[in-house]
């Protein structure tokens, strides 16, 4: 007899939607994992934390925490065939709140992630004429965002509002199409396009004068970094934030995969593809930064940066100075749009899937019920002159004290509280090309939590010690700690709501068996 219980009635896949094949699932999972962070976060993190020597903690983190955690998410969703709240509720009724906490996090991320995509859409067009002139920084914060002092303003910025509205229309359209035709097909089309577009960008960057100096700065190893705990924390943090793990996405996606699919084998492809794209991004970004440093007669370290500063300040400067700069600009910002879009779809799908499961809604109704309020909140907060400050604070706190915190807690609850790992490893190994045995249980229950607690602890200490980026205390209290705390409260309140069809919870007969094993 199979060790995998026939846990779901055959009608469930038909009712909830499903990916048509393993390949589509893998594209969707890569589409989710490869996002803005791969392009604008990894290169600088690697450069800052030992350069070439960072390869070692990075690979260690991928193999000891990233991929094992990916497998844990897969096991949850694939075994319990539900959105994050439904999967947790089917595992043990009392843990449903963890699933809704993850849903709340996805809601918060989606509303500001859309704004960054709207900026990238505008910048794809700006690249053609190099609209920022000779002052990219002043243009971005002043002319484009019209950013005032930190605070909350209701003055709309039409140049952001309109593309933001278009981004939401596109997201809603894809999600209305459903799991296979929307979520799956969009990634299956966009990810190959992304690889080609970014590949051309990398090749172009490598032929710029100074590119070799850029790569030299990125890859020259600083072996001393390996004894620094903050470097290891940076590696675990990068892997964790890059892989889309721990906040419901992979649980949701794997619930749409056929029961007999080789999940661990698929997960290895997803994990290495995500890192493979990061490495490509590192090469492309630092080749371009090397050019910029040489053009300005400064060291690469003086121009190296990450995040919004890299994309919307440093890159425009490179685009202005480089030969065929407009091509570099269009490819770079187009890549950001595509990478962001497939990730954004996955984030919103977590919320839609949860609402569908809980309230027995059709896809169309759930999509409308979820995305319209989301789009409105997004437009209200992020298309005004104060958008960038709110975005920066929410992003920082929801990552550290949302995603990372819920991931660590759910990992500990599953491995030590409910002790379900033996059953999960049987489920994952059944019919798989990889035996997910004791090594996995040790990594998920001991090694990965230690790595992630280290990241969380350092980050918490840093935020308590010094106010993040020097923002006013009230803003940090409301949009930082407040938002991170509110999603926890929301999660456990939402779990109290009744399931429209209580039978939904009993479709998987795992609780008793899981508790005994």
């Amino acid at each position: 007899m199979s060790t995998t219980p026939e846990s779901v009635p055959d009608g469930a896949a038909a009712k909830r939607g499903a990916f048509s094949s393993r390949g589509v699932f893998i594209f969707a999972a890569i589409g989710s994992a490869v996002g803005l962070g791969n392009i604008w976060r990894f290169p600088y993190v690697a450069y800052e934390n030992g350069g070439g020597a960072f390869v070692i903690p990075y690979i260690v983190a991928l193999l000891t925490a990233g991929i094992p955690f990916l497998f844990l998410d897969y096991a949850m969703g694939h075994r319990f065939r539900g959105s994050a709240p439904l999967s947790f509720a089917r595992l043990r009724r009392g843990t449903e709140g963890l699933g809704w906490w993850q849903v709340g996090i996805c809601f918060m991320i989606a509303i500001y992630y859309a704004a960054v995509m709207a900026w990238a859409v505008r910048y794809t067009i700006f690249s053609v004429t190099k609209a920022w002139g000779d002052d990219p920084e002043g243009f971005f914060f002043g002319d484009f965002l019209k950013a005032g002092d930190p605070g909350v303003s209701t003055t709309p910025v039409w140049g952001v509002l309109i593309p933001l509205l278009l981004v939401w229309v596109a997201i809603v359209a894809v999600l209305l199409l459903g799991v296979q035709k929307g979520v799956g097909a969009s990634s299956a089309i966009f990810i190959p396009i992304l690889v080609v577009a970014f590949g051309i960008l990398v090749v172009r960057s490598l032929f710029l004068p100074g590119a070799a100096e850029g790569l030299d700065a990125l890859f020259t190893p600083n072996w001393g970094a390996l004894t620094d705990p903050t470097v290891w924390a940076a590696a675990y943090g990068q892997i964790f934030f890059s892989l889309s793990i721990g906040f419901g996405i992979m649980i949701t996606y794997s619930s749409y995969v056929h029961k007999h699919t080789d999940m661990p084998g698929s997960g290895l492809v997803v994990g290495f593809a995500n890192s493979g794209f990061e490495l490509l991004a590192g090469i492309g970004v630092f080749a371009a930064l090397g050019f910029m440093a040489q053009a300005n007669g400064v060291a690469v370290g003086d121009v190296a940066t990450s995040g919004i500063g890299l994309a919307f300040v440093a890159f425009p400067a490179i685009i202005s100075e480089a030969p065929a700069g407009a091509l570099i600009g269009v490819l770079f910002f187009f890549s950001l749009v595509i990478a962001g879009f497939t990730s954004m779809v996955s984030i919103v799908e977590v919320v839609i899937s949860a609402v569908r499961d809980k309230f027995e809604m059709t896809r169309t109704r759930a999509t409308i019920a979820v995305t319209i309020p989301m789009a409105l909140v997004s437009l209200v907060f992020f298309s005004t002159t104060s958008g960038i400050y709110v975005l920066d604070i929410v992003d920082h706190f929801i990552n550290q004290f949302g995603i990372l915190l819920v991931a660590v807690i759910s990992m500990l609850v599953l491995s030590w509280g409910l002790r379900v790992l033996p059953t999960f490893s049987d489920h994952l190994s059944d019919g798989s090309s990889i035996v997910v045995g004791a090594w996995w249980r040790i990594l998920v229950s001991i090694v990965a939590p230690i790595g992630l607690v280290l990241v969380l602890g350092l980050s918490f200490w840093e935020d308590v010690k010094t106010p993040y980026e020097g923002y006013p205390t009230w803003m940090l209290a409301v949009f930082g700690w407040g938002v991170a705390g509110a999603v926890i409260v929301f999660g456990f309140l939402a779990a109290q709501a009744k399931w429209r069809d209580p039978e939904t919870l009993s479709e998987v007969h795992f609780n008793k068996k899981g508790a005994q094993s």
Partner: protein
Amino acid sequence: MSGSAIVMMLVAMLIIWGGLAVAIVNLRRSPDLPHADEIQRDL
């Protein structure tokens, strides 16, 4: 580029891109079961 930088770049490419190639080869050896008869409605 310095020798050590080139070596570390090649090491990173070998492990990460090589790892991806190995993962794909491994997955292709276990066939994806076609279930064409199954309905994938998404109501």
